[in-house]
């Protein structure tokens, strides 16, 4: 991988995990929120993980947002983030569990919120 056509990922998906297959322990969803922990960075982290940590310097990001900024598939960011969570370098907050998503109070907040956004209600 010596050239990188314009607009392609900075880190090819197949290299971003260092080519090492590890099971990802925490299951991260598209909307899991990632944040940098207080832990100091150890040396020797893979470049792709450093890139992910870099995007979290500005604040927390959903997995899918980090993937978009890094130009990596969500599946690759899941792997990187899972490793960083294992190392306590990143904290992950799970989205609301699927069973709770039709909670009437939550749905009402979504509907009321959308109505409030209309310019000409």
């Amino acid at each position, binding site marked *: 991988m010596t050239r990188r056509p314009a607009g392609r990922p900075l880190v090819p998906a197949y290299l971003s*995990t260092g080519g*090492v297959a590890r*099971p990802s322990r925490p299951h991260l969803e598209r909307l899991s929120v990632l944040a940098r922990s207080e832990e100091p960075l150890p040396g020797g982290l893979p*470049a792709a993980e*450093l890139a992910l940590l870099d995007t979290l310097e500005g*604040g927390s990001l959903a997995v899918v947002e980090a993937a978009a900024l890094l130009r990596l598939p*969500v599946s690759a960011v899941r792997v990187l983030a899972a490793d960083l969570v294992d190392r306590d370098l990143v904290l992950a907050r799970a989205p609301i569990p*699927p069973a709770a*998503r039709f909670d009437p109070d939550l749905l009402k907040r979504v509907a009321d919120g959308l109505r409030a956004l209309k310019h000409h209600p």
Partner: protein
Amino acid sequence: MASAPSNTTPSAGAPGAVHQPDTARDLVKILVAGPFGVGKTTLIDSVSEIRPLHTEEHLSEASAEVDDLAGVREKSTTTVAIDFGRISLPGDVVLYLFGTPGQERFRALWDDIAYGALGALVLVDSRRLDASFDVLGLVEESGLPYAVALNTFPDAPRHHGAERLRQALDLEPGTPMVTCDARDPDSSIDALLALVDHLIGRDPVEAR
């Protein structure tokens, strides 16, 4: 360890505009589904607070984890761009919209994006109803509640009555169907509201 570029600054987008405020909020998602050219990106763009972003997803490993990642190099890597946008709502809810193409070959990716979604807003171009059949099939199979938004293109046939359209699309009587101009934020919000109000009105035992 492969040599990755040392420049880690993403060249696209200003990260500061994307980061989340630190208050704990509930993140929810809705799929904006439909065939190519139906107006998914337009709708997401019209209501999103961030410039719509996208991820490049490999179709062959959509639901896969690391094991398949290592093998991606060897596969033909068909990728598809999945747009998404974000709306922070008053009340500490953040709504994400995912523009989801609905073809059978996207199924694994579809299932992954649909996991945990509130539902789908299916965009239909009334000039080519049949282009939406695949996506309607996928939504129904995935069990996602949905509403249909007919996008109003200028040369769309006017003679279609709502009932005829519902029949042609084979919609259940309870499935909401609204018309929408995806370029207009209020119209897009109304279409999303048709879905959310439908979710609220459903019998709780249906909700799973």
